[in-house]
């Protein structure tokens, strides 16, 4: 199993723990990641389609040269690359135009996958369960998918847009409790953080409230933008609403890594802003 790894800008910076845990977990599961040489930003939520499609297409062309499918752990990158891919694959005239723009020769032969899809569907839950060294008893997790990993479903494709199951299944495979959660596919507000902070924080607070109401001690995420809202902005939500939250938000790779017996440092768990130390103690990891 070999993929062109597209970390995206955040995993090279503020989401470095997602990069670390992705690499560590993939090594453990026998997924070979070759970082896409000279990749560029996909355009994220900021660039308009007119710009983000050619930007994304340049990355697709680079992967095609390597003869590899792309794996993206960031849901925003996954969405942007998949959208560009769909558009150039389905319309030859458009593909020509984009190739002209990027001065490239992309033929549409690359697949774009989210890391969660590969771990759950290619590696498979059976192999993961067998690899679990330390079942995470004591972790009561809620599965938070967010938006772009499941929507729009004609682009995201790999799971149900209303009630997805892949992350639920993965959490169960680690031995942790996966709690019922009505905010699975709600929006974290990340796209509004800079423009309308009060709205963004209210949206993130609803996701956290839902997790706490269900008695969760950990929220599991699949995207660095969601993680920003639920982890980095958590202290901001606490001070704005005068409440204490103290709910760790872990990347699914960090949770899986713990179950596979990987170390706290290796998984970047010391880099989360909301320290998950109480959670780790509850599963006897120091």
């Amino acid at each position, binding site marked *: 199993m070999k993929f062109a790894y597209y970390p995206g800008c955040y995993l090279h910076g503020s989401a470095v723990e997602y990069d670390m845990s992705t690499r560590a977990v993939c090594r453990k599961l026998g997924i070979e990641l070759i970082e896409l040489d000279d990749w*560029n930003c996909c355009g994220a939520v900021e660039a308009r389609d007119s710009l983000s499609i050619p930007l994304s297409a340049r990355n697709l062309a680079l992967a095609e040269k390597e003869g590899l499918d792309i794996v993206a752990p960031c849901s925003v990158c996954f969405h942007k690359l998949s959208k560009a891919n769909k558009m150039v694959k389905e319309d030859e005239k458009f593909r020509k135009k984009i190739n002209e723009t990027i001065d490239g020769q992309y033929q549409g032969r690359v697949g774009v996958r989210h890391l969660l899809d590969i771990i759950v569907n290619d590696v498979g839950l059976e192999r993961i369960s067998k690899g679990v060294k330390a079942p995470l008893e004591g972790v009561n997790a809620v599965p938070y998918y967010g938006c772009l990993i499941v929507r729009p479903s004609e682009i995201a494709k790999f799971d149900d847009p209303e009630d997805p199951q892949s992350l639920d299944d993965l959490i169960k495979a680690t031995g942790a409790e996966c709690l019922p959660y009505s905010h699975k596919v709600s929006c974290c507000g990340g796209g509004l953080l800079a423009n309308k902070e009060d709205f963004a924080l209210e949206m993130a607070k609803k996701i956290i409230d839902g997790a706490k109401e269900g008695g969760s001690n950990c929220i599991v995420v699949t995207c660095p933008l969601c993680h920003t809202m639920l982890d980095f902005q958590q*202290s901001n939500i606490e001070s704005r609403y005068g409440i204490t939250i103290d709910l760790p938000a872990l990347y699914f790779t960090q949770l899986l890594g713990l179950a596979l017996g990987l170390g706290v440092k290796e998984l970047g768990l010391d880099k989360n802003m909301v320290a998950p130390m109480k959670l780790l103690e509850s599963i006897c990891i120091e």
Partner: protein
Amino acid sequence: MTEAIRLTDTDPRFVDEIKEAGGENILMCYQCGTCTSSCPVREIDERYDPLKIMRMAVLGMKKEVLSSDIIWLCSRCYACHEHCPQGVGITEVLHAITNIAEREGKEGNIKIKSLKPRLDGVFNDLIRKYGRLFEIKFFVHLVLLSKGATGLLSSAPDGFVMFRKGKLRLLPQKIKGMKQIGRIFKIVEANKK
């Protein structure tokens, strides 16, 4: 009090402009309101009503739509898009509308109060310069634009913690293929005009 909409004051070409700017399916909307009931922003602020924006746009109320602050509040979560029974592609229609607003703003026809286009501009400029996002520079600009110098000062402790945890690069990563990136920006901008 509700005022009458005078069709003589509307612009019947607005729908075509939206179609051209990426909102091809706007006329598929039959006003069922599923978008509005799906919208997480609407849950917070009733003024944000995708259904109403659709209707106003179809009626050609260009000035009212484009000069409204509301159009910039879409969080791009695609909930309305997913639920729409008509395949209107509401997220794309709203995007098309903000594209037009931005263009009209640049031409001086309307005044945009929302920070969103300026924030996106800062992001794009960094990609133009390096090919990848230089996060720290983006964060600083973002906070300065939205909260001013005092905001920047109060974010400093968080920035320090991130730096200590190794989550902030102090230098940009410039890619090798900058010639290609420059070409992409040049062509995209020429097409906008």
